[in-house]
């Protein structure tokens, strides 16, 4: 497996040979930031296109096909439009908070985005408490949503924000619990380490067998709810609250919410990949050496993105199939079912690890 850290070390070496250490680090930081932002935009646009096509095919339609070949440029057109669209400032709204809210959302999702392990040696933020940091960073987003609802001076926005607050904070519990389950299995919170283990010993979902599969399912449900996507799209439920918390946002401010929604979807799927599905580790079947060698030639980043897209597709499938839940049903699903299940699951996993009955 190709180790990306060779590249980064080479760049570092190159830079330090011509300038002092601090300047090299500064330039590297800027480079990395540029890379993140570009990747962020590219992935968001790709996902939006993907979703529009997927949903069209679910619905016996064609989907965008007139802007560029197969409608490939459709989302670029949307972005150009949104960039030049007016941003409305309203009277009687808290202007500062109103303008701040979308940035909070996008910053939160970018921070989480930087935690993803793309390849061996290619991760931007990689602490020894990586999972913990990831959970913390993703929680900032809800502040943005609450602020948006509060500052808009709109009743729909406020209801949407309150729903969102209740929903996201509740489901974070399940997510935390499933993460804990997997940490119990891997014994580390560092994402790169978690993936490396899986490359060495097999994917976590196989290693941890029953409790890991339960945790994966709970994570998928809770993760979907975290992203505010159907069937958990209550905060912006179109038929009830027109557009929920972002009712009053126009132009690129709305665009931020729009992009963040899709990126959060990618992040949710990416973390699922990293923690359960082996991250950048290729498929490995013991015994089939020829097959394994071929698989190992495919670069890790392709594996990571490929697996993530599969999970994203699963989540889209869910979204375009199910009707929306009601707020009380969402909360009872979480508190009455998911939380107890994931608690029991944690105990189960602890037993599995303690008796060493995992692979």
């Amino acid at each position, binding site marked *: 497996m190709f180790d990306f850290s060779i590249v980064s070390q080479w760049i570092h070496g190159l830079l330090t040979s011509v300038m002092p250490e601090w300047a090299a680090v500064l330039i590297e930081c800027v480079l990395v930031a540029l890379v993140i932002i570009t990747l962020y935009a590219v992935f968001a646009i790709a996902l939006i296109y993907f979703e529009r096509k997927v949903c069209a095919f679910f619905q016996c339609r064609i989907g965008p096909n007139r802007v560029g070949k197969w409608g490939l440029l459709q989302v670029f057109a*949307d972005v150009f*439009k949104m960039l030049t669209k007016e941003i409305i400032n309203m009277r009687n709204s808290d202007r500062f908070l109103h303008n701040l809210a979308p940035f909070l959302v996008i910053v939160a999702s970018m921070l989480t985005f930087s935690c993803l392990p793309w390849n061996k040696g290619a991760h931007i933020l990689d602490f020894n408490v990586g999972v913990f940091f990831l959970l913390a960073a993703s929680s900032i987003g809800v502040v943005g949503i609450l602020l948006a609802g509060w500052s808009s001076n709109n009743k729909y926005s406020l209801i949407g924000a309150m729903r969102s607050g209740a929903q996201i904070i509740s489901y974070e519990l399940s997510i935390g619990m499933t993460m804990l389950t997997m940490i119990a299995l891997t014994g580390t919170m560092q994402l790169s380490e978690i993936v490396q283990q899986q490359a060495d010993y097999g994917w976590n979902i196989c290693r941890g067998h029953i409790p890991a599969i339960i945790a994966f399912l709970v994570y998928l449900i809770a993760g979907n709810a975290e992203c505010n996507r159907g069937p958990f799209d209550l905060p912006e439920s179109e038929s009830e609250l027109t*557009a929920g918390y972002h*009712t009053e946002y126009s132009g690129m401010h709305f665009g931020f919410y729009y992009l963040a929604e899709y990126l959060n979807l990618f992040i949710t799927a990416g973390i699922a990949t990293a923690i359960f599905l082996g991250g950048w580790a290729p498929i490995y079947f013991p015994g089939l050496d020829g097959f394994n060698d071929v698989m190992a030639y495919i670069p890790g980043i392709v594996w990571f993105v490929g697996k993530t897209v599969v999970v994203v597709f699963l989540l889209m499938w869910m979204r375009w199939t199910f009707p929306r839940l009601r707020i009380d049903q969402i909360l009872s699903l979480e508190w009455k079912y998911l939380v107890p299940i994931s608690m029991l699951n944690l105990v189960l996993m602890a037993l599995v690890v303690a008796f060493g009955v995992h692979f």
Partner: protein
Amino acid sequence: MMKRPKIKSIPYDDFKDNETFEKLVEELNAGGANVIVRKLDDLIDWGRSNSLWPLTFATSCCGIEFMAVCAARYDIARFGFEVTRNSPRQADVILVSGTITTKMAPVLKRLYDQMADPKYVVAIGGCSISGGPFTKSYHVVKGVDQVIPVDVYVPGCPPRPESFLYGMMQLQRKVKVENFFGTTNRKEKDPISRAEQREKDEIILSEEEKA
């Protein structure tokens, strides 16, 4: 030079009303523009014309046809218009589908005002063009252009989905010749002076306070 924005798969001659359109292009291009500015404009116009998100606004029959246009057989998503927004702030075009009554007129005006620029209006169906079969009624606005400026009229009662699409394409062509940089943007200069506008605002404010 006449600018002829292309619509994929419909030749220029197949559009019915090209005279008005050509006049519009001439007017817009009268001053001429810098090459770079023009290119940038083209890019933005391309974006705007291919991303006209409609507001879900339907008052009567034509709304059902609009749903049919969004559905599988006619699939407005091919043009990228399927992202119907329920919040006027995020919509680009308001398809006035259905009769506008005098009670609805101020609401429609407000909806239009709530939309962010650039915004377009398509009057769909006889009712919104002229009052249609209800033109003699005491409670119907005789044409939505009395209330808000209309870009494209789509006749019919209700228009067939094909006419919907045709109307939207006409709007696309219209958007494609807009100037964004330098010149004024599509609409004539606001006839109301700033002072008047301020006065108006104050009246609205005082009314709101009273309420």
